[in-house]
């Protein structure tokens, strides 16, 4: 969740372009199917805002391979964040749990960037209030390291070693203009996955 509508800064170095992202998502989709032995019982939950279109794209690819529409939704974690009290109250993002629910299913959380792991910690708490999945997996487009909690991703688009002063920005068609992952230097204001 590092990708925020930051001040326009187009000087970043492109790490993944649209075709790289497409290939990474295709691979992740296949890995999810392989690991899960099929698409049955899967639920994809994207973490807003950019995890949601990623989850939808993965669902499209799974449908193309398996001919099965995986229930897909979104899970807002704002109220579960550990930094809620550090900033003024934030607007909530959309949560939509598929009708089938999550009880007894394998939930794959989908997010754009894995950084400190705090967003995922919040997402696990949020899931806890929604039901009891059989298993929870994590798929991310970019893992930039610097974990602050014992959390790891099961499916990673690209491991991206970064320094703490750098900022990783994900843009996705649908929300932004183009598909791209860029790294920005020290120019960026506060670094952080946490918003």
């Amino acid at each position, binding site marked *: 969740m590092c990708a925020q509508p930051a001040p326009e800064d187009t000087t970043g170095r492109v790490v993944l372009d649209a075709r790289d992202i497409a290939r990474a998502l295709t691979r992740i989709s296949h890995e999810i199917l392989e690991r899960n032995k099929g698409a049955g019982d899967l639920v994809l939950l994207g973490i807003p805002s950019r995890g949601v279109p990623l989850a939808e794209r993965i669902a499209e690819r799974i449908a193309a391979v398996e001919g099965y529409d995986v229930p897909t939704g979104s899970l*807002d974690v704002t*109220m*579960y964040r550990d930094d*809620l*009290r*550090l*900033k*003024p*109250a*934030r*607007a*909530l*993002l*959309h*949560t939509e*749990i598929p009708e089938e629910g999550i009880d007894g299913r394998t939930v794959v959380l989908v997010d754009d960037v894995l950084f400190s792991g705090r967003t995922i910690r919040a997402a696990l*708490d949020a899931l806890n*209030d*929604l*039901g009891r999945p059989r298993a929870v997996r994590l798929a991310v487009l970019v893992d930039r390291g610097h974990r602050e909690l014992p959390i790891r991703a099961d499916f990673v688009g690209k491991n991206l070693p970064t320094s703490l002063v750098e900022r990783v920005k994900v843009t996705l068609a649908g929300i932004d203009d183009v598909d791209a992952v860029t790294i920005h230097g020290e120019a960026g204001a506060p670094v952080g996955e946490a918003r």
Partner: protein
Amino acid sequence: MKRHLLSAADLTRDDAELVLSTAAELRSLADRPIKKLPALRGRTVVNLFFEDSTRTRISFEAAAKRLSADVINFSAKGSSLSKGESLKDTALTLEAMGADAVVVRHGASGAPHRLAHSGWVRSSVVNAGDGTHEHPTQALLDAFTMSRHLGQGKTGSLDGRRVAIVGDVLHSRVARSNALLLATLGAEVTLVAPPTLLPVGVDSWPVETSYDLDAVLPKADAVMMLRVQRERMHGGFFPTAREYSRRYGLDGRRMATLQDHTIVMHPGPMVRGMEISAEVADSDRSVIVEQVTNGVAVRMAVLYLLLGGAQPGGEE
């Protein structure tokens, strides 16, 4: 958002839309197995009710509890307030107990404002109805209900929608808050009442006024009926209840003149047979029960936005 919610006029259009879109997200909580969010864990909300209320107090209590806040209910009956304690001393007690928000209902217009700006308490103050002045969370829940039915898909937008508010406007804090908020959200409000029940200075409100209910109804997208507040009336505002009901009550005959999509609202408590007939109150157009459901979501949104984040620098 400001630190307090005292008047619907405090809300800019952005503020109001933020409350309504937050409420839209929170409304889905009612359908979940665990109706609880952790956002206000460790915060204390005091419900300070100097006037009787069922709906509003229960609604605020449910809202605060669903956000995991601790709730202390304080009503005039059965507390030191009935022994003659002043508002100031009550406020100092609340401050000493460490309240983060005080939800206050008071018979005197302006009591919440006094509480917020006197320096007696550091907590956020939410006006839950003061005298004949304002009731901003009621207006927010009414706007939320309207936007769900008339909002053309976008929460919070009521641009160009026509709302008729009918009845005892003079004594109604609901009417004043609604008039202000609905104008902020772009709706066209018409107040319909006998001349004796329109407040002095109504011409400075952002509304139209009319004495003729039958002329207004066919154009309205939402009709809000107000209770005749007998307990606040000391004098003859209309000849008889029957005459009032015939000229300003909503019955089946009048309901038939409404457009197909028009909804009928009432802030409650309603007096069936007076301002609204049972036939109308129980009809498909009536969203009166839904208003109560939406009230919890809207009050959760207000409490979350006031208390959920960092407190803006102590003093205002």
